[in-house]
């Protein structure tokens, strides 16, 4: 009995104090470490896919950049009727420094930029024949993001000027070490544009002519056309747009309607963010559509003032609207499928850019401005024009590209007022987000937003 007891006690104590320190090593099952992520070409390519996903989120090209760019420009054309105060304040051109949409566009934008930077930094890990393609795409995404950030958070680019006004901070190296001081100051608008041009020119050289739904050579070129136009570099804009029209395989869809709500990119899309039922944000449908289409009932409603701008009764675009079941107001038909891709660059824009640049330069590279405008109008079944002037070209832009995020940039570029505000009014530049001012002492706030 005693013996049994002793054995039993020893057994108990034995199991009790058996070391189990190995049990403290538990590794995450859903994640990998930064070291692993940056150790293989396969993972670097994965990071690029991640950067597309990031850029396609609702905070960025999943809709908020486009939506706020239009709301910022709307006066009578459309009204923000929704309940959210942050877009409403943008529509009112009276933004508080803690506006969460303004904050999130910034944060998301720099997440995309950092991911693109990581791809560029580690490109040598990728198979050599893939390196140009992968790095080129990262540069495209970085340029796209910087272009929208600098236009929203920096005072307008003034053609032919020095453009030393503060733009946004340029971060060009991927951050993986978060232990040091991460504060960086704003670069000038000029510096940011120079970086964008460098990235896009490189991307154009490095990317293939077609690249499935990812950015290709002509996506870079088309964006280059847009940047040059914003800068008033009409030669650059014209030649780039012409290159895309003539050399890329893109073509306008047969009807205007077919250019929108496509779950697979249409031929007209030079670049689009991909949305599926399983991923990708679409805040455009959320705010522009009625509830049974996935919207909130119609937060942004179209006013008669906009519809009256159409000068042709047969113009399909003049009836590309519907009445909301929820609030009875007029809504645009551009966003009626919540799982449709979001086009960022359509070929139609290239015709508009070439027309405007040719007109301003008095040239007819590719085609005459009138012919280019009529290509757009013909597709929409609008009557054709005989001889267009700058006003007609700009108006055509507005009619064709409405609700696609062009308005405030076009108004500022052409120095047209926004309601009562001059194009360069302080209120037409976003504040640097308060949370960013709070954590980065090197940032300078934009005028009109406190210290």
């Amino acid at each position, binding site marked *: 009995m005693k013996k049994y007891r002793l054995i*039993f006690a020893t057994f*108990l104590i034995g*199991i*009790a104090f058996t070391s189990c*320190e190995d*049990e*403290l090593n*538990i590794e995450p*099952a*859903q*994640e*990998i*470490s*930064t*070291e692993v*992520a940056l150790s293989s070409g396969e993972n670097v390519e*994965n*990071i*690029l*896919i*991640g*950067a*597309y*996903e990031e850029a*396609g989120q609702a905070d960025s090209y999943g809709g908020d950049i486009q939506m706020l760019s239009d709301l910022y420009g709307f006066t009578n054309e459309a009204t923000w009727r929704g*309940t959210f105060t942050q877009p409403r304040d943008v529509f009112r051109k009276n933004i508080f*420094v803690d506006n969460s949409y303004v904050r999130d566009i*910034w*944060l998301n934008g*720099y997440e995309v930029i*950092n*991911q693109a930077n*990581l791809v560029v930094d580690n490109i040598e890990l990728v198979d050599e024949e893939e390196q140009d393609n992968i790095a080129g795409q990262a540069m495209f995404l970085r340029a796209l993001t910087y272009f929208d950030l600098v236009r929203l958070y920096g005072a307008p680019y003034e053609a032919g000027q020095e453009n030393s006004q503060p733009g946004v*901070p340029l*971060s060009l190296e991927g*951050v993986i070490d*978060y*232990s040091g001081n*991460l*504060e*960086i100051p704003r670069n000038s608008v000029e510096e940011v544009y120079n970086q964008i041009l460098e990235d896009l020119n490189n991307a154009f050289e490095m990317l293939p002519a077609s690249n499935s*739904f990812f950015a290709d050579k002509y996506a870079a070129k088309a964006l280059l056309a847009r940047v040059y136009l914003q800068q008033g570099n009409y030669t650059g804009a014209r030649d780039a747009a012409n290159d895309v029209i003539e050399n890329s395989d893109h073509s306008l869809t047969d009807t205007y309607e077919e250019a929108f709500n496509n779950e697979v990119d249409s031929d007209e899309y030079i670049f689009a963010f*991909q949305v*599926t*039922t*399983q*991923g990708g944000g679409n805040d455009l449908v959320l705010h522009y559509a009625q*509830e049974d289409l*996935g919207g*909130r009932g119609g937060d942004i409603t179209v006013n008669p003032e906009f519809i009256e701008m159409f000068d042709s009764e047969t113009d399909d675009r003049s009836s590309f609207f519907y009445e909301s079941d929820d609030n009875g107001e007029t809504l645009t038909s551009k966003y009626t499928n919540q799982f449709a891709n979001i086009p960022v660059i359509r070929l139609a824009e290239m015709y508009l850019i070439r027309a405007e640049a040719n007109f301003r330069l008095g040239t007819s590279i590719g085609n005459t401005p009138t012919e280019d405008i009529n290509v757009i109008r013909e597709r929409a079944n609008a009557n054709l024009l005989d001889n267009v002037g700058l006003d007609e070209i700009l108006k055509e832009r507005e009619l064709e590209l409405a609700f696609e995020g062009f308005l405030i940039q076009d108004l500022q570029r052409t120095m047209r007022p926004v309601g009562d505000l001059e194009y360069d009014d302080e209120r037409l530049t976003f504040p640097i*987000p*308060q*949370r*960013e001012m*709070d*954590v980065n*002492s090197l940032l300078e706030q934009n005028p*009109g*937003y*406190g210290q």
Partner: protein
Amino acid sequence: MKKKLQRLLVLMPLLVGHLIFAQEKVVTGTVTDSDGMPIPGVNVVVENTNRGVQTDFDGNYSIEASVAEILVFSYLGFASERRAVETDDVLDVQLAEDAAALDEVVVVGYGTQSKRMLTDNVAKLTSEDIDEVPTPSVQSALAGKAAGVQVTQTNGKVEGGVNIRIRGVSSIGAGSEPLYVLDGVPLINNNESNNGAPTNPLLTLSSNEIESIDILKDASAAAVYGSRGANGVVIITTKKGKSGKASLSLNYSYGVSEPANLRDWLNADEYIELFTEAAINTYGEEEGLAVAEENFESLANGTNWRDGEVDTDWQDLIFQNGFVQDMDFSVSGGDEKTSYFFSGAYNDTKGIITGNELDRVTARANVSHRLTNKFNTGLNMSFSRTNIDRIANDNAFVNPVQAVAQPALSPAYLEDGEPNSNTLYPNFLLQDKYAFYNTLVRRVTGRAFAEYQFFEFLKFNTDFGYDLYYQTEDQFEGRLVPFQATNGEAYASSVATESYVTSNYFSFSKTFSGVHDLDVVAGMEYNNTNRRFQDVTGIEFPTDDFQTIESAAEITDGSGEETGNSFLSYFARATYAFNNKYLLKASVRRDGSSRFGSENQFGTFPAVSGGWILTEENFLQDNTVLSFLKFRASYGQTGNANIDDFASRGLFGGVSYNQRPGIAPNQAENPLLTWESVDQFDLGLEYGFLNNRISGEIDYYLKESDGLLFEVPLPGTSGRPIINRNIGLMENEGVEFVINADIFQGDFTWSTSFNIANNDNTVKSLPTDGADIITGQNILREGEPISAFYLLEYAGVDPDNGDALYYVNGEDTERETTTNPNEANRIVAGQPYAEWIAGFTNSLYYKGIDLAFTFQGEWGASIYNAGGVYQSANGDYYDNQTADQLDRWQEPGDITNVPQARFFGANGTAQSTRYLQESDFIRLRNLTLGYTLPDHIIEELGLQNFRVYFSGLNLLTITDYEGYDPESTSDANQGTGVSFYSAPAARTYSIGVNLKF
């Protein structure tokens, strides 16, 4: 727990004893108390032998003993009695109640200690404190009962999260919840809700099976739990069988509940008045009227608003009369070798908010058996099933409470009885009718234990504990639900978290030379927790009749993940008492955890404490007034490891883009991340006067939390918005005062207990040269309390033009005002945590009638109403407004705090102190009035006890706070101390009956 002590006492006698029993015989007798009532379970031991028995249910015992041997009779709460065996075979004994009522036993982790000899601060609550409070949450029942323990239920939802703060908030970014230990098993306490609002994981506990709750408040007590003790430890001990005849008790109660408070909102006429004026102020007379009328027309949805056809009281639709139904039974009993306790309970609660319900079944079996008088073993096992019908989180349009934003002009229902879908905001009634969100939690918690007494002074315990928290959620939204655009959507999730723990320790206990008492506990513990989660979302259903994922034509989302953590710990504790007068204690725990990087995987947490019982000294021993006086002091270190499992690492997670796999960074690396460590110093005084008729304690503490874990905002340009860092130092300093008194004794008894505690929280240092850390409306600033409110200061209304004004609060412009909120600077304007909390409990008894009630009070906190910019915005937008907005500025000279009504005017709607208010309150937390039938009637009925009672919860609230409830804040993670369409607490009236056979 009493039982445990009894076992100890039984085992105490030495093995070596008298070997010769010349005149052994059987001694029998009855043990009674001073009133002559038999006491069951009294230990009867022959001194200096290992022979011992316990009295049966009628107080009878029978033991073999020889003449001249000494019998020792002992029972908790009574003075021990030593009696010599004489020639008589019958020896009846009357035990006197122990004058030192302070000598209750507290559970301190890996053992128990007498409160009298304790050098730590431990608050003990018993089943009486929590029974009969009509709420399904055990934790809610603790409110006001223990000094320095703040209990707050987030809001009025039945499953709502409960926050318990012991001596203030000692962490910022890590968890602030105490560690819960149930019968030695650390409980899983992770919120697993997926609808944006937390559920309370401890809802699975039923109060009927709880014997006691011991709250370890100071570091000296909690240090034995090391890296998990920083927020205090709540030790829950379940009931055990008492030896004797089996007893069966049955309890049933039923109560009705209603919101504790309602607010006044504009009716249809008032809405028309205010909004017509607002539109005219913005657009001018003619256009304004047109805008307003167009709006009214649209809101009225075809009804005639001009004639007041519709005047919907939306608030009335949001809230409903709920009920709480409780029934439970328990059987307990045992003999010398075996004791058992079985219980079952059912709770059925219908919440006060439309669509919110809960029902719960719990069962427990606790069995222990003594194989030999050295070897004791047993099993505690419980399971529960909690079924919750949930509603949306506070920050969702279909949160029912958000319906207060619907103008009264809008009909709630159409003529055909369907909810009106053409409302300003989505009509929650559609959600209520065509959608559901059901959460089902199954929980199994158990512990197998064995205890072997090697020698009288040395014992070995080994425990194996297991806790399984298995939750499923099922959601379906039919076609008519607001925002539904995919022919129905279903969501299903399943999460199983299991934790097992093995604890093995030796306990040594010996008295040397009659005056040196030494107790030592030393051992190890290993705890492993594993969590598996899966969920899936499907859309496109054939009809609304199909509501499970199976019928979804398209699966749009799914996930499966696994995570885990482990803790390996070694601990030791020694307590020493000299002459029952001078007390010393020291403990240490060494913890390792997988949550921290390999560089910082282990931490050591020591504590020391000492005490001096002055009343044991000669100069006070005979003092008739002062019956007990003890000084104690303690210092200890604990840790807070309550963070994400892999918080220190730089991580990339998987993402998908157009069905292509990718990866993206999702956490910034900080290899230096380590525990938060909390150093706490406590100085206490315990007193008793007049034979301890008046007793209590006074404590001062200073608690410093160092290396606070925090999600520090990073410059966005770095690509990550936040990083986990150990950023700084915070201090909680406070005093606690407790007084208990038996005001009347005898036929009429009245005992009262009052506690009040002050806690002063200060952020002492922050990294990056002490730069402020601002998150939404909350700021961390050196010298200010944690998460203080940081807001523009509202300066009221310009009497000349009705403009809302804000103080500029610039460096040179202190009291200047501006109408432009962007020109004004924010200030620290209050704090979200109470500085003073108090509880006042009274128990009265007279001839079968008992009355008990608890008042609870809190002072010094404020609540920011984030919904204020919509609810009380002087007609800024279409939302219905609080009735106080009628007091708006209308003409020059008007003195008011409500600016001129301006539709779309943003006049006063910046986030400012306009929407911040102090939330001091005193609340009659619960009250119970009962009647017990007289003994002779009970006996005739063949019962042991029969009692009926009325019980109420939140019967009365005294506060100046104008929101729904001074304790309700948002459950949608909108900041600390922020309320957002948050429902008030329930007020419940309940009646019940207790039966005991």
